[in-house]
């Protein structure tokens, strides 16, 4: 029975750990995306150098602008050629006759303000147009919010699942011992005398039950981090570094295990002390 209890705690906590890792990583990725939202200010082809500098200063003075970076049309073309891979080679013939604008790349300090800032920039002189993937950004924000909400819901559901399973396990253990508890009370044992072994057992159960999950976290995350990073390297898909993330996660799981174990045991004993 004790083995079964620990195994139940273990399986649950492994699930909690996996979800925590997933959700925290997703959340971090979502933050990466947010951080990466940039406004491309296409500068009028007709603007001379002074006007360009002046425009840069004006943009910097807008509230909420975090960074402004100049990128020449040559630079833009080579970025384009690069981003298109093999197919892009065909375009490199236009290097002499660059059809692109010079660009100011602007970053908002609060990503949600991107739209407001873009609108303000558009009003300025010598701005041909402003590009920031309006729809993409909005979609990303929404996706981000969804991901966070779902992630939070999943974590809460899982912690409750864990609490439920553990206290359920302990409760059944105690039901099996309720006769013993009744006899102990009849022989003159106080509630605290009866309670403390269960308290210790709960804590032990929680901690023993979280040892395997901690091992799984450390081993598994180490493996996944090292292998996954090579396979998936899209722009925003980047795992949190093993150190300190895996250690923090392990600490959280140990803590959750111990707290839930003690809590579950105390809750369950209380019911049976009324003999």
């Amino acid at each position, binding site marked *: 029975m004790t083995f079964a209890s620990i195994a139940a705690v273990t399986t649950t906590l492994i699930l909690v750990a996996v979800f925590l890792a997933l959700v925290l990583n997703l959340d971090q990725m979502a933050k990466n995306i947010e951080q990466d939202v940039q406004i491309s200010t296409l500068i009028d082809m007709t603007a001379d150098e002074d006007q360009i500098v002046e425009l840069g200063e004006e943009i910097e003075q807008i509230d909420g602008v975090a960074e402004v970076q100049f990128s020449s049309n040559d630079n833009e073309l080579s970025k384009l050629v690069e981003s298109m891979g093999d197919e892009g080679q065909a375009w490199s013939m236009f290097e002499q006759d660059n059809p692109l604008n010079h660009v100011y790349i602007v970053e908002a300090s609060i990503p949600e303000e991107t739209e407001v800032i873009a609108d303000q920039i558009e009003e300025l002189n010598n701005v041909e147009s402003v590009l920031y993937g309006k729809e993409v950004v909005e979609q990303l924000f929404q996706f981000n919010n969804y991901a966070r909400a779902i992630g939070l819901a999943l974590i809460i559901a899982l912690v409750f699942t864990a609490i439920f399973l553990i206290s359920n396990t302990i409760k059944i253990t105690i039901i099996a011992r309720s006769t013993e508890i009744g006899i102990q009370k*009849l022989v*003159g044992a106080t509630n605290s005398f009866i309670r403390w072994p269960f308290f210790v057992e709960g804590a032990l159960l929680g901690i023993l039950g979280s040892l395997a999950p901690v091992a799984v976290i450390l081993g598994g995350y180490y493996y996944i981090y090292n292998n996954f990073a090579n396979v998936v390297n899209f722009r925003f898909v980047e795992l949190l570094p093993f150190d300190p993330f895996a250690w923090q996660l392990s600490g959280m799981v140990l803590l959750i295990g111990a707290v839930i174990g003690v809590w579950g045991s105390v809750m369950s004993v209380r019911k049976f002390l009324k003999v």
Partner: protein
Amino acid sequence: MITMENVSKTYSNGVTALNDISVHIDRGEFVYIVGPSGAGKSSFIRLIYREAKPTKGKIIVSDRDLSKLKERHIPYLRRDIGVVFQDFKLLQKLTVYENVAFALEVIETPPRTIKRRVQEVLKLVGLEEKEKMIPSELSGGEQQRVAIARAIVNNPKVVIADEPTGNLDPDTSWEIMKVLEDINSKGTTIIMATHSKHIVNTIKRRVIAIEDGVIVRDQQRGDYGYEI
């Protein structure tokens, strides 16, 4: 020592086990409770150590008013009373020794004293050789003797025994009775429910006869009183 005033006990299923009982038992008395099966003897006993609460009436046990006794003080009441349960109520996972020692552990007796005292009592009930066995390895009579040992091990003020010889042969029964007489002579109050006409008629003490939840006879140095 024990006083009941107009005590009634009706169980939740509607059975009235005791009906307006009044009785007083002095310190150091030896009292037999007799009566047919289902008369209310065990119910009477259960009220004394507060396993059950009376539906009506007042109970005072060693200066404690049980109706006013707080939940958390119940253990201390029970430590003053040694009980031999009709169904033994032994802890199935503990050995004979540990079962008896348990009654001393709850009152935080020093380990050395526990060891000496438990062995002394197990010898008294003739189980010194079975101290390492668990209850399911014992015969019915042996289990009953473990229950008796546990009840008397911490020198309680009152010993209540519900049919302590029901599973014992006459020889062993008389030995147990000697033990009870002995601790009674040292001042312990003894209350014993029994069906043994022989014991009651041989060792003459106060007899309280209960029938259908009512005390029908209360007699010093009485006899069993029922025809065989």
